[in-house]
């Protein structure tokens, strides 16, 4: 087995699957779409993986979860199986792993979820809404899903908010008129368009090949069509964009110092500011959720209430174990990343803010816009 064999197997499988992804559970076994996941991996000490440590990490996780591992002729490609569930793990990029499966979606996601739980230094990719739309825009739009729920970060006593317009917006559309529907939705719920899925098609008329891909908010692709090449191109484009986003965050926003021999030193890095287009409804409830230690945010934090409407937080990202600090007001959140902080922490936070606070929240990474 090598990459070419894998492409042949997955390509053959793609041709036989049903394109109605949302009805996957009704499909007979082996007719569900091909699933491809992007996971981000670290070493337990929070440092980056290299090829050797990525292999060791993968084997360690597989051993702990009792998965059988088969090596291939490609030293960055592995086959993992447990019962009837099988995966191809592509760790060519030691940090961002690509995982393909033809197995049943429920069983494979249960197993992947268990791996992420078992080994907390694995995390999903958390593409922001606008990045998902950019990826969709590279093909022909065929559908989308919006999943916005403001009640998740509010106290139970505020559950009456569910009756407010746009506090909860869930919408799924499939068809070639996706953009028309989106324009309509923009009019009614402009701040609740948190995309949880985008569906799009790409074709190559010369080779008469096509692919229909569906990308969700945790970096999962579902695919059907007749070309694994087109599918892996889509995955690769997404991976490239997402990795650039994460690396740019880490490059600009990790606050770190460098000593000079004679004392003193340089202090590099910028805090990141996420502005809330409208003030948070309940700052206390939001802070409680932020530092609850629970998924999806997975943040441990000591809260210092400076003013009634201003908090400072000493925090630890329980995914990568890195330290970070927050300043928080109803209008904005300022994040200070430590020297080893993971950009995925910011991506996870941004994604959840878009899904539960306001879908128009954007991360503007400070750029060098004034010549020095």
């Amino acid at each position, binding site marked *: 087995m090598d990459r070419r064999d894998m492409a042949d197997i997955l390509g053959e499988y793609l041709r036989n699957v049903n394109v109605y992804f949302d009805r996957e559970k009704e499909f007979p076994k082996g007719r569900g779409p091909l699933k491809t996941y992007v996971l981000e991996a670290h070493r*337990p*000490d929070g440092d980056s993986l290299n090829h050797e440590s990525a292999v060791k990490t993968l084997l360690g996780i597989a051993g702990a979860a009792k998965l059988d591992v088969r090596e291939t002729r490609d030293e960055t490609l592995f086959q993992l199986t447990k019962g009837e569930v099988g995966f191809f793990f592509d760790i060519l990029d030691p940090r961002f792993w690509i995982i393909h499966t033809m197995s049943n979606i429920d069983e494979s996601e249960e197993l992947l979820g268990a791996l992420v*739980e078992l*080994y*907390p230094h694995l995390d999903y990719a958390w593409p922001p809404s606008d990045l998902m739309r950019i990826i969709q825009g590279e093909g022909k739009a065929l559908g989308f899903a919006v999943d916005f729920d403001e009640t998740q970060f509010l106290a139970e006593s505020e559950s009456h908010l569910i009756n407010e317009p746009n506090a909860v917006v869930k919408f799924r559309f499939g068809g070639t008129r996706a953009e028309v529907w989106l324009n309509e939705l923009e009019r009614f719920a402009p701040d609740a368009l948190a995309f949880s899925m985008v569906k799009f098609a790409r074709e190559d008329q010369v080779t008469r090949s096509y692919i229909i891909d569906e990308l969700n908010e945790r970096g999962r692709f579902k695919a059907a069509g007749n070309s694994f090449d087109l599918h892996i191109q889509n995955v690769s484009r997404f991976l490239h964009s997402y990795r650039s986003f994460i690396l740019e965050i880490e490059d600009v926003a990790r*606050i*770190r*110092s*460098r*000593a*000079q*021999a*004679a*004392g*003193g*030193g*340089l*202090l590099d*890095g*910028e*805090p990141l*500011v996420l*502005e809330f287009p409208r003030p948070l409804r309940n700052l*206390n409830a939001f802070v*409680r959720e932020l*530092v*609850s*230690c*629970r998924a999806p945010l997975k943040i*441990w*934090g*000591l*809260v*210092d*209430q*400076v*003013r009634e409407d*201003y908090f*400072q937080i*000493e*925090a*630890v990202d*329980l995914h990568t*174990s*890195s*330290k970070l*600090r927050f300043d928080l*007001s109803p209008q*904005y959140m*300022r994040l*200070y990343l*430590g*020297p080893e902080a993971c950009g995925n922490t910011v991506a996870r936070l941004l994604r959840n803010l878009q899904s539960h606070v306001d879908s128009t929240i954007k991360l*503007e990474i*400070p*750029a060098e*816009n*004034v*010549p*020095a």
Partner: protein
Amino acid sequence: MPPDEPSPTTGLQRDLIPVNAVIGFLKRDKKWPSVLYQLGYRLAMIEQPVSAAAVGTAEIDVICLNRKRNHGMLWECKSGRTIEERQARVYAAVNAEDVQRTGNVTFPHPTSASVEPVYCCLEADRQVIIDALAGWGLTFPVISLGERAVLARGQFEDPDATECFSEGITLPPLEEVPRFLIANTHTPKWRLAGAFFATMVSFLRKQSGTFSLRHMLEETFPDWECMGTDLRRYLSSVAREIVNDLCENELRDFARIGKASHSPGDTLVEFTVDVLGQDASTRTRTFQKLLRLAYGYIERSKEDRPYEPTRGAETLWLPGLEPE
């Protein structure tokens, strides 16, 4: 010397506001004016000792450089109303050559480079600073921080900076200043307790097994590498005290003090639990317990009282932030 007035809040201590404000002016924070950044200045060095021949050495709080103008600003950020004549005389005497040679700053054109000292203080302290400088015959510009950052005295050599600060720059409430530097030699133990506790949780989560005091200090303070000797010594001593206290009390079920085999004098902390070996919900509960212990420890440090194992940490949550 401790600051003259206690901070009205539990946030960043008052005497750290000026230095963070100036660093903030040099960064691109959307909620703090980037006035020096916009004028083309970039942060070159913090807490940098610079010597002027025959006058002495001073630790310059912030050095920033405008490459186009071939000009540097040397910021002294006053943490209170105290001002030293000897230090001010060094600031006055330092030239670009001194900054380049003893401060390790590279100017684009060394022979024609220029520098100027600037003092920055809180509005409440400005008159004391202005009077002292005037009394010594020194004409440095003074920036005062209140609702606005204003040029309270003198002029910059850079006319654009003079124009900008003369008009005054509207500031957010000062407690919202970006927090680049979080400690100085006046920072009390209780203010550092939370930051050190968080670092220990981060190490526990990393499955570090053991960690040294130095590692903890580097992780806790982004500016550790730039700090002067006195501050490092002070923070090391507080860190040692906190770690010993925690390992004997609040964190006795999690960690203990060991000795580094290669350097028996160094403090080494060993973790005695494997958090990652627990299932997900037990792990979450463990971290929530650590949160309660941390609040309890901060409260105890603030009140300077001994550990009481029976005291319920659950009662120490901030009102409205209790776990549901």
